[in-house]
Structures are given as C-alpha cells and as structure tokens.
C-alpha cells in the first residue's frame, strides 16, 4: 500500500487538471473528519492534529512540487502527506499503529514519512523542520541538481529560534528553499496576534533579505502558482523565499481541544471562504466540472476513506520486534 508506485500515481492526479485538485482537497476533508471521529470514539488513542480548512495549502504545494523536492512538515501532517501522494491506508495505518502504516505503526499520527514523494519524517517539535529543509536544499545545491526543499510550518513556529536561524542560513547560502508558513491564526490556544507583534509573518522575510509574500491560502490555484514561482526562483539559483498562507483551522488544535477561545462568528466568516466549497462553485461556473461530477468526486472520496479504514483496521498491528528495528542504520 505504501509502495512508491501508488504514491506517485496519486500525485499525478494533481497535474491532470483542476478536478484532480478538487478531489485531493475533498479527500483530505473526508479523511480528517473521519480521523477526528475515530479519536472521539476512542478507536485510536493518543493525540492527533487535523487540518480541515487548510486543504488548499496542502494540495497547492503538492501540485507545484516535484516528487524529488524534499518536504518537511509538522505533526499537522495528514493533509500534506495525502496531497503529496501518500495513500489514505498508509496514513490511517500509522494512526492505528499498523505495520502497513507510514512508519510501520510505531510513530503514530504525528509521524509520517515517505521519501518516494519527498516527505522526510514529519516533525512533532515546533520549528524543527525549518532548518532541516535548509539542509535538504543544501544537498541539492552541492550536488548540482535543480531540486528544491519546502518547509511547511505554522504561524506559531515563526516565533521560535529555528525559524529565524533556518531562514537566515538559507538566505546567506542562497539555498533553493521555499518556506511556507501556514497561518491558521492560532498556535495551540492562543490567537497569533497575542504572541506575534507583526501582522504579516511574510514581513519577517525582510530581516533575511529574501522575498516574503502573503498568499490566499484558501485558493488552491493561487497557492499552487505562488509556490510554483518560488520553486522556480529557487531552482534557478535565486535563493529562498517565505510564503505566508492565510488560512484557518476548523477543528481544535488537537484531539482534546474544542477551541472555546474562538471569538463568536470567526469560524462562520472563514467558512464562507471554505477552500473546497468555493473551488467547487468556481469550477462549476467555469464549466470545468459539472455539479454531478462534483457529487461523484465527493462520493468517491467518502468511499475511499471508508475502505481505507477497513483495510487499515484489518492490517497487522506493529509488533514488539518492530519496536527494536531501525534504531541505528545498519
């Protein structure tokens, strides 16, 4: 299930036109809704961080990146992994502790990885993936490939040292990196304006002499072209950039959080610009998709998630021996 073939096929659908992007976003939404329910039902234990509302960011990035580009992302990683091509069974398998899971079931929801689609182990420590992406960009630079690295992280992460050190290093080494901040308006329970003195995180790029751009993170096509341009710049040897995706997380920070801190009406305002609903409307208006086809897409992803859950659940749980594997490289 986690074979490279499956992942790359899934990635290709994003290149085959906008219907593919629509389907990828719908799949993430259906997947995350189900994951959230599974944690509430107690089918799985531990914690999880879902990304409903942020689907356009994941899919836009995946549409613009090559499988040979390296991606680092966070514990809020299901959407990115799915968009990059990881199969729902592989992600769910990991969440359910199955041997077919992304890292064999010993990592859990926060820990996914598939190098065939460029995804390094996802990071559960805030900011940690940012300098690591700079390092992956260094590999491309030294080896002379025209691949790039993409770091995906949250708004809160822009206050941690790793962000500043990573961007500075990437800038002075002129590394082919794209730093994508998913500004979903919150850290855990704190609104970003309470912990961050600048309105736009993109402005922080100026400190490192690199381009910084605010991007509408609710529009998958806008995300894809912004990331595409930054990647081209990086591949051409013009160095890193910082993109700030303005977006919103619908669920609480993690399983246990019901988001009581959200001001009245905020969710509704963002939901009016729901990345999936608005895209569906636009595709139908522009004749790229019929309402019927959209309905089929939604039914298809719903089925896919149900099947994925059944397949993952039927898989073997990780074993005691699995705990002892891969501590050291041979």
């Amino acid at each position, binding site marked *: 299930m986690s074979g490279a073939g499956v992942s790359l096929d899934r990635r290709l659908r994003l290149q085959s036109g906008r219907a593919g992007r629509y389907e990828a976003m719908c799949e993430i939404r259906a997947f995350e809704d189900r994951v959230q329910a599974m944690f509430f039902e107690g089918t799985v234990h531990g914690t999880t961080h879902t990304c409903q509302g942020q689907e356009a960011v994941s899919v836009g990035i995946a549409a613009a990146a090559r499988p040979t580009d390296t991606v680092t992302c966070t514990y809020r990683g299901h959407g990115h992994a799915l968009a990059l091509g990881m199969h729902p069974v592989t992600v769910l398998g990991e969440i359910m502790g199955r041997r077919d899971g992304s890292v064999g079931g010993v990592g*859990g929801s926060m820990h996914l990885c598939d190098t065939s689609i460029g995804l390094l182990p996802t990071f559960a420590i805030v900011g940690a993936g940012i300098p690591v992406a700079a390092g992956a960009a260094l590999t491309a630079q030294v080896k002379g490939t025209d691949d790039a690295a993409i770091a995906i992280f949250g708004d809160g992460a822009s206050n941690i040292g790793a962000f500043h050190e990573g961007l500075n290093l990437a800038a002075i080494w002129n590394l082919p990196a794209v730093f994508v901040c998913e500004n979903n308006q919150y850290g855990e329970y704190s609104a970003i304006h309470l912990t961050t003195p600048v309105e736009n995180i993109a402005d922080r790029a100026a400190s490192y002499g690199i381009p910084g751009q605010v991007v509408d993170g609710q529009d998958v096509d806008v995300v894809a072209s912004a990331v595409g341009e930054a990647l081209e710049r990086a591949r051409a040897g013009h160095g890193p950039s910082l993109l700030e995706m303005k977006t919103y997380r619908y669920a609480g920070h993690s399983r246990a959080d019901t988001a009581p801190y959200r001001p009245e009406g905020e969710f509704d305002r963002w939901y009016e610009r729901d990345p999936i609903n608005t895209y569906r409307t636009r595709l139908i208006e522009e004749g790229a998709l019929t309402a019927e086809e959209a309905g089929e897409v939604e039914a298809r992803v719903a089925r896919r998630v149900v099947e994925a859950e059944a397949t993952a659940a039927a898989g073997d749980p990780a074993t005691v021996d699995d705990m002892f594997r891969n501590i050291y490289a041979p």
Partner: protein
Amino acid sequence: MRKMRMNQAVATALADEMRSNPDVVMFGEDIAVAEGPFKTSAGLLKEFGPSRVRDTPISEMGFLGAAVGAASTGLRPVVEIMFIEFIGVALDQLVTEAAKFHYLSRGTVSVPLTVRGSIGAGLGFGCQHSQTLESWMYSTPGLKLAVASGAGNAYGLLRAAIRDDNPVVFLEPRALYAKREPVQTGEDAIIPLGRAATVREGSDVTMVAMGAMVPAALAAAEGAPWSAEVIDLQTLVPYDKEALLQSVSKTGRLVTVEENPLTGGWGGEITAFVTSELFGDLQAPPVRITCPDIHVPYGRELEQRYLPGPDYIARQVGSLLETGTRPPHWWETREVVA
C-alpha cells in the same frame, strides 16, 4: 487531607508559593488564559494577574532565557515546558547558563529558577513526546532535579523547588496528572529537596524508584510473597544517600526501577554508589529495571510493553530473590520474529 488530582496539586502549590512570595512569577505556553494544556495553572491568572502569570510565544529558548535573567536579578520564576522534549531548544540556557551562573559570579549571583516539565510514556503521544529525559539533566552540576510520583508529593516538592535558590528541574509524570490522592497542603507539607521517602517498609529487598515508577513498584510489592521496601527518591540531584544506605544495609538487596532507557539511566549511578559502599553486605547483585534502549513506541500495547509494569517488576524481583542472580531483561530473552 483533601483529595486532589496531581495537576490540581501542582496548581495549588504554585498558588501557595505565589501568595507567600510576590517575586514568584510564571510563564509558559498557554498557561495563563487557557490555564495550561494540562490544567496545572488553573485559577492563577485570575488571582495573580497578567504581570505575574504570562503566556509566551512558542519560544522556549526565549522564555527560559528570560527566566534565567529574571531569576538572576530578583524574581523567582517558574517556567513550564509543556512536554519535557521541548527543553531541547532551550538547553543552553539551563545547563550552560543557569547551572553555572553561581560559579561564574564567585557566588554573587544565584538563579532561583524552577523549570517544570511533563514527562513520560503511556498516553500514546509517540516518541517525540513521551520521554522522561531525566538522564539529560542529572549529570549537570549546579542543577537540581526532582520528580513527582503523584499528587501527594507534587505539592510539597514543587514548593521546595520554588524556594530553592538554585535552578531546579521539576518533572511531572503526565500519566499521573488525572490521578487523585490525598494531599497535605501548607508550610508543613513542604518536602525538602534531597530527601527520599520510604513509601513502603520491607525486609527482603530495597526497590528504588521515581516518578511514575513509584506507583508501579508499589503495585508490584503489594501482595508479593517477599517483603519489599520501596523508596521514592523524589529528588535525584542531590539524592538521599543516607536513606539508600540505611535501607539496603537492612535488606541486602537493591533493585532500581526507572522509566528510562537502560544505558545512561540514573539506576546506574545509584547502583554504583550503593555497591561501592555496601559491597560486603549485599546478598545478591543489584538489579536495574528499565526500559530497553529504544524509542518510545506508539501503539498502546507496545507502549505498555516498553514501560516496566507491576507484573514485570514483580517477576524480576521475585526471580532475583529466588535465584540470587540477575534476571535477564525481557528484551534479552525475546525470540525475534522477522
């Protein structure tokens, strides 16, 4: 005595120290308005206000560093590291700055800083959110280290940590936050750092544990056909040498129980100390019960296997008493299946 959850005991200790000393301030991520991800600062913002109880950005190096500065210049800060792993990004401020300030100021500067962190496995958080990291801390001179084993001593140890004029790391096993225990509060309940607690008396073997392994060791000792004395070390730096020597002189056997990988765990230090002092009195080789040298796994069953549980502890101790030799660790006798 009131029954409290451990998170309530922590919040109560913080409140009592803040009441008794206006220099005590607190900061950490989502500790003020949201009252802490584990509700360990419930009511504090309301009572003490935003000057003394502050939310921080996600900036452990920044706020731990600020706490070092504040502590060196007249405040008595308590900072919260939500999961102890997050100390990684701030370690310099703790082990290379705070721990050495007193030394590097000819004793003129002290750093009355408390760093609280939640620790431990068992809740399915995965390997980057489940370690105890006791081993990272215990070999740094200048730092003290205490570990709560439940609501009962969390209160008294935390108050002592805050009163101490040195940087103290205070670790709270996350799996115990929700557990209720009777808690004695007030000045008399303060537990001096460096003092162990004999939580069970016995004559055949001394079991030394800390944190979440204390209830596990007690459960193992309950109803066993042998008689175990269980010592809760409570403070690892400095540890209570006298209590250890007294107990092992009586029992002649030492078993350490810790939630750490075997290699580098504090059980090695305790074992070396006791063995050197009481070599001739020991009736059996000291035994260490630990986790294997691997990462904390995710799945519930695997995680329970990873942790020393009461049954395993009882089996190891029973085997030691029966055979007089060290029982193998469970992973040494495992049949490996591909």
